[in-house]
């Protein structure tokens, strides 16, 4: 059943939402045994919410099961961001995005698996003692990351469902592409970050993943808006994103980023995305190839230097005193702090803390951190210039098909980081973008990414509708 039809039936009391939620939870447990998409299944909370909705079936998400990435806080439900250092942490409040969804009748079924703190593009960098989620199309391959559990569950669930994911440099788009679903990253600041366990404050965004373009539009209009609790949230009014689902794409100008189809991109990915661009042309879009030389060449180092610098300061708050993992209290503060961190962070978290700390250290700061922040300005300017002439820019979402786990093991961290070649740049510029499932090759899904100017999410939804 489609999302819109399901919600209407709940509102009209044609579906027993408590009974339905029980069935959903059973299916989640079954899927989870095989695919590891959920770190926690919030059974009690979901049933309690379902009972409330049954009594009062209002709200634009009435009775709809939603999953929440483990880095987004849900009150009274363990929220670990996929890290051992936050094992046992029970938030005292909902994140704003979660609260807004619940207020509209959504039912939280659980917390989805992810790379530790979002540190990865494949969900293989899960924290110590966490399970790696498996691709819904081939269990020997990765889901993409870091919102891998969100992508996998969205594809695998037979019930209507929307996932709340989080993206810093590709964490919604990558799993959306590798799991064959829609994944929308809003403009930076469009959705409040309050209650999000942060990775990089100037980059983090909460956004939806769904099997339907409708689901991404519906969730975006539910969770968007200014929040006094997040000083970076935008005050601009939120429009009706679902209205864009009925707008025709005729006349939209598309810039196809040439560098994204170079030899580094798998041929089958390029072919399927080009075929989709031609489809848009057939439907009245006008496309032209363009180049973004600085953006496409320098976004990876720029992104990783800024993101790790921010992460290394954010992670300083995990000191084993107020919440999360504890150790026996002994030694002085530095000794205790060092012990908690060394015992509970995974390898990739340690690597990123070291890169981020290095780039901010006296003697290196100007050449690395500040330099990256300056190049970020050039990248933003290059995008802004292109978006003066085009409504939407297009690239593949990921340069490859979903990789096998044994292939990923052979990659060095640098080679791993390079896989974010398409996604890091729009995130540096805070531009909204949407990964659209556009086809398959060897039974594996391929995503096309559409990027628009700040606050122009509607245009992305218009494009997505053509493939829904």
């Amino acid at each position, binding site marked *: 059943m489609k999302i819109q039809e399901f919600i209407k039936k709940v509102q009209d009391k044609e579906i027993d939402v408590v009974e339905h939620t029980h069935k959903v939870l059973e299916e989640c447990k079954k899927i989870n045994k095989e695919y590891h998409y959920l770190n926690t299944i919030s059974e009690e909370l979901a049933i309690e919410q379902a009972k409330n909705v049954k009594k009062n079936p209002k709200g634009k998400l009435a009775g709809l099961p939603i999953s929440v990435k483990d880095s987004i806080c849900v009150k009274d439900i363990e929220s670990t961001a996929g890290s051992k250092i936050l094992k046992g942490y029970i938030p005292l409040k909902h994140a704003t995005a979660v609260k807004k969804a619940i207020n509209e009748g959504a039912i939280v079924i659980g917390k989805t698996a992810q790379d530790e703190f979002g540190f990865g593009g494949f969900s293989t960098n899960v924290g110590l003692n966490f399970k790696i989620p498996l691709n819904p199309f081939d269990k020997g391959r990765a889901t993409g990351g870091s919102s891998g559990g969100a992508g996998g569950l969205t594809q695998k669930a037979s019930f209507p469902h929307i996932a709340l994911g989080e993206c810093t440099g590709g964490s919604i788009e990558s799993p959306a592409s590798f799991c064959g679903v829609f994944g929308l990253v809003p403009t930076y600041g469009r959705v409040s970050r309050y209650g999000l366990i942060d990775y990089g404050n100037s980059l983090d965004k909460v956004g939806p993943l769904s099997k339907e373009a409708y689901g991404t539009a519906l969730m975006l209009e539910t969770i968007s808006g200014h929040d006094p609790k997040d000083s970076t949230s935008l005050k601009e009014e939120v429009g009706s994103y679902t209205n864009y689902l009925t707008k025709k794409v005729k006349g939209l100008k598309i810039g196809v980023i040439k560098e994204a189809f170079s030899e580094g991109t798998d041929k089958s990915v390029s072919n399927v995305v080009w075929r989709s661009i031609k489809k848009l042309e057939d439907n009245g879009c006008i496309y032209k190839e363009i180049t973004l030389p600085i953006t496409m060449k320098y976004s990876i180092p720029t992104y990783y230097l800024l993101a790790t610098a921010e992460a290394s300061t954010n992670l300083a708050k995990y000191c084993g005193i107020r919440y999360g993992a504890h150790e026996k209290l002994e030694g002085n503060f530095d000794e205790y702090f060092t*012990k908690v961190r060394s015992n509970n962070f995974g390898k990739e978290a340690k690597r990123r803390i070291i890169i981020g700390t*290095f780039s901010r250290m006296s003697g290196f700061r100007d050449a*690395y951190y500040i330099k990256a922040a300056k190049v970020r*300005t050039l990248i933003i300017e290059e995008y802004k210039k292109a978006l003066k002439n085009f409504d939407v820019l297009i690239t593949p979402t990921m340069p490859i098909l979903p990789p096998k786990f044994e292939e990923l093991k052979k990659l060095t961290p640098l080679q791993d980081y390079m896989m974010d070649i398409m996604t890091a740049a729009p995130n540096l510029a*805070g531009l909204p973008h949407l990964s659209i499932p556009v086809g398959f090759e060897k039974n594996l899904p391929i995503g096309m990414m559409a990027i628009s100017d700040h606050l122009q999410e509607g245009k992305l939804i218009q494009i997505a509708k053509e493939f829904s």
Partner: protein
Amino acid sequence: MDINKELILKVAKNARLELTDQEIKEFLPQLKEVLNSFSELSKINTDKINPSFQPIDIKNKLREDQEEPSIDNKELLKNTKHKKDNYFLGPKAI
């Protein structure tokens, strides 16, 4: 840029991380590769360019300095084992 064991240990110490010998052995070539590659940013001229610490222009947003209800003390202490007399208990500071 010479990324060597001493430098990695110094950075790790600043970051309050104690790396095992195995971790140092594994991380050193990886970090060398990453940081040497990232230094390619030096090729771009950014002489007259201001850094962007946010992707969009965000002005200072200040709120009125008013009293607001806060989280209950007992609630706040729920997530820790290290507490005493309604306070967090930490390691020795001095």
